[in-house]
């Protein structure tokens, strides 16, 4: 029975990758453990190791092919004694057997969120680990903010963040970046790729795994006027450092009677990625949004990620910059230019509508936008607002929308109690109660630690259907 070699998933969020190189040719014999190919993910180059023995009967995906979806058959192995020709001609797609490969780190590049060497079985994924298929980025319109005449390029959120840091580091010698794996490894999520090469080890600093300590060091440096960008590999790990973030960074300006500003950016992925369990999936937007003295930013699109990160780096206050691992690889239109900033504290109406306001931020926007498109087909014209900044919250933009639509659904991946959407609901009640034709509804992550099992994880996260149902409910439809 010929065995298909399937494109392996090499990180929790990988959906596709590039087959950069075959190390075996058709007709070569393969032993278990042999490195047969190299695959480039959005994070690293990985080696693919054969699990089964046999002859590489056919290569189905050629060297250099980009965007090979996970689980696509890339080759066929004929077992010993099998007819190689027959296997080659009939292999692809016939086998239901699990993939015959297992990945091995080529550049000691583990999936960053776990910090351990990858032992990712390339078993077929029954379904996408992401709870909802991504909304297409094109439904998100940020272009009205783009400067007239600016050249527009397509860029991933990851590249946008990297460019924002590089541009600001070129502009201001007091800006530096520190964190785990930001330098030689090129960033656990490749967000700091290339910065070490351009700015050197003094301004791109690999720290030991010691969040509490390096957060404090960053705050101390910021108190003297330097402008650190402190990367947390994920905000889950910032729990070790939250004392320095809140007690030192956020409060010192007030406690010093205005003498000691703290111009620092704490950034990194926040919230759920995919299948990484409760300790790597927490959304901390509500936590930090509770703290006077902090600004909390959570962009969705690449242009906002870039413009807001640049604003954050130039801001004289401590900023919590919440990124999202799943969004890193998404592409959006971004205007070119070193001085294109997006102001902190301004929400954006990204889809005008008249029947119901859907407000969200970060990856919550994928649900909001997909729901709006589906609702349009049913004759409900939803206005979608991307909050972009959680604190200070631009509630005025939300209120103005609610005064027009009289209905609101707030969406977040975080927990319901004391959540960002709870705050939105309360603020609408305070400011626009008389305008409401229905109680404000919210769609949130479920009130449970994030489960690992794919089906349970999917249930724990919000989904497009819930947003649609909530919008219909507030429209009494």
């Amino acid at each position: 029975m010929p065995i298909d070699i399937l494109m392996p998933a090499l990180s929790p969020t990988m959906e596709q990758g590039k087959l950069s190189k075959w190390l075996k040719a058709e007709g070569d014999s393969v032993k278990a453990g042999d490195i047969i190919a190299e695959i480039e993910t959005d994070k690293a180059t990985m080696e693919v190791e054969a699990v089964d023995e046999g002859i590489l009967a056919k290569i189905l995906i050629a060297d250099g092919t980009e965007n090979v979806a996970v689980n696509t058959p890339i080759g066929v192995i004929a077992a010993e004694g099998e007819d190689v020709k027959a296997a080659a001609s009939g292999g692809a797609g016939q086998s239901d057997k699990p993939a015959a490969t297992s990945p091995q780190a080529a550049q000691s590049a583990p999936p960053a969120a776990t910090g351990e060497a990858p032992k990712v079985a390339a078993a077929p994924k029954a379904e996408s680990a992401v709870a909802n298929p991504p909304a297409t980025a094109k439904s998100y319109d940020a272009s009205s903010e783009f400067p007239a005449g600016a050249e527009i390029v397509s860029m991933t959120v990851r590249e946008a963040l990297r460019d924002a840091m590089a541009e600001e580091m070129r502009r201001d010698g007091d800006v530096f970046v520190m964190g785990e794996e930001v330098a030689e490894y090129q960033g656990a999520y490749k967000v700091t790729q290339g910065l070490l090469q351009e700015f050197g080890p003094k301004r791109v600093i690999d720290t030991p795994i010691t969040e509490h300590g390096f957060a404090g060091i960053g705050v101390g440096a910021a108190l003297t006027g330097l402008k650190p960008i402190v990367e947390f590999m994920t905000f889950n790990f910032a729990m070790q450092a939250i004392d320095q973030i809140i007690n030192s960074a956020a409060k010192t300006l007030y406690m010093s009677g205005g003498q000691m500003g703290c111009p620092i950016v704490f950034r990194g992925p926040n919230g759920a990625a995919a299948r990484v369990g409760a300790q790597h999936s927490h959304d901390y937007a509500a936590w930090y949004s509770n703290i006077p003295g902090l600004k909390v930013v959570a962009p969705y699109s690449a242009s906002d990620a870039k413009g807001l990160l640049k604003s954050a780096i130039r801001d004289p206050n401590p900023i919590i910059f919440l990124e999202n691992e799943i969004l890193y690889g998404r592409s959006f239109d971004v205007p070119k230019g070193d001085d294109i900033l997006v102001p902190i504290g301004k929400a954006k109406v990204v889809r005008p509508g008249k029947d119901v306001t859907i407000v969200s931020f970060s990856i919550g926007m994928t649900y909001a936008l997909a729901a709006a498109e589906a609702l349009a087909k049913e004759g409900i014209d939803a206005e979608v607002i991307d909050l972009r900044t959680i604190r200070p919250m631009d509630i005025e933009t939300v209120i103005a929308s609610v005064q027009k639509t009289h209905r609101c659904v707030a969406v977040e991946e975080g927990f319901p109690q004391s959540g960002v959407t709870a705050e939105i609901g309360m603020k609408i009640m305070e400011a626009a109660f008389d305008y409401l034709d229905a109680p404000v509804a919210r769609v949130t992550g479920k009130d449970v630690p994030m489960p690992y099992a794919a089906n349970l994880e999917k249930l724990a996260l919000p989904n497009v259907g819930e947003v649609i149902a909530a919008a219909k409910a507030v429209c009494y439809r």
Partner: protein
Amino acid sequence: MAVAARKTKAPAPAKPAAKPAKARSAKAAGEGASAAPSNIPVFSKDEDLHAYREMLLIRRFEEKAGQMYGMGLIGGFCHLYIGQEAVVVGMQMASKEGDQVITGYRDHGHMLACGMESRGVMAELTGRQGGYSRGKGGSMHMFSREKNFYGGHGIVGAQVSLGTGLGFANWYREDGRVSLAYFGDGAANQGQVYESFNMAQLWKLPVVFVIENNRYAMGTSVNRASAQTDFSRRGVSFGIPGEQVDGMDVRAVRDAATRAIDHARSGKGPYILEMQTYRYRGHSMSDPAKYRSKDEVQRMREEHDPIEQVRGRLTREFKVGEDELKAIDAKVREIVNDAAEFATHDPEPDVSELFTDILLEPAKA
């Protein structure tokens, strides 16, 4: 350190707790070698007079703060530095203009030694608008950018990472400054202290870690809290040199501080000084100090008082007359009384201050 009086039922403190601090070099530690006090350079008359005045100012200021706390003029927590004056005064005698100081919540002495005004410190204690933080920080949270005093921190151990960050900034700017990060024997058991030690030595940051071992973390004696009570050895696994210093002798402090600061300034990285000292008062104003004997306190005051040591030298060796010393005493009392008077009558902050200093306005692009 937001903990109210704790009436401990712990057993009586171990007897040897009251033995006088002995100065010795940690590098020679283990061989029983001890740097004889005679190795310590003597002070000139001017140096002794300076140390006397500085320490006396702290002592009288703290006594006055204690009185004002009793009168209800100072609220919240108030941690007095009485007994430990030689540590910060000796350290400052070895530091240079521009070097930063950061400490925990027992911070009044450090501020005065950094040259901050008595009025501004006392007015902060009383929560008035003329305080260093305009009344919004209080005893544990005061700062002076002008004097390079970076607080005043209420979270035990947090100042160690922050102080390492100050050293990081000096390293980044290559400006030749040294950060002096003070913390107590209690804070020395916090995890972030060792995270900071590691990075400070890894990156050879110019920071001196000054462990003020006053023998009690609140009410817990060092031998009830610390597996390794020789705090000068706390950096051994990182390769950070350390010394135990008689923190009651301002000359010994200045001498060790000079070595430590030179080491840090020359690019060799951090240095640890364990200052063996003693606080005469309780942890805070509400601490009856039942965890130690009155005899222990009395013995330290009589035999090792840092101010009396200097006063004795001034009269015996430098033949400074009682009149001259009394004039210094009177001058110090005048400064402290003036500060108390100011802090009593200065108005509370304007209510508009409630919502200021939360965020800074970004510069216009």
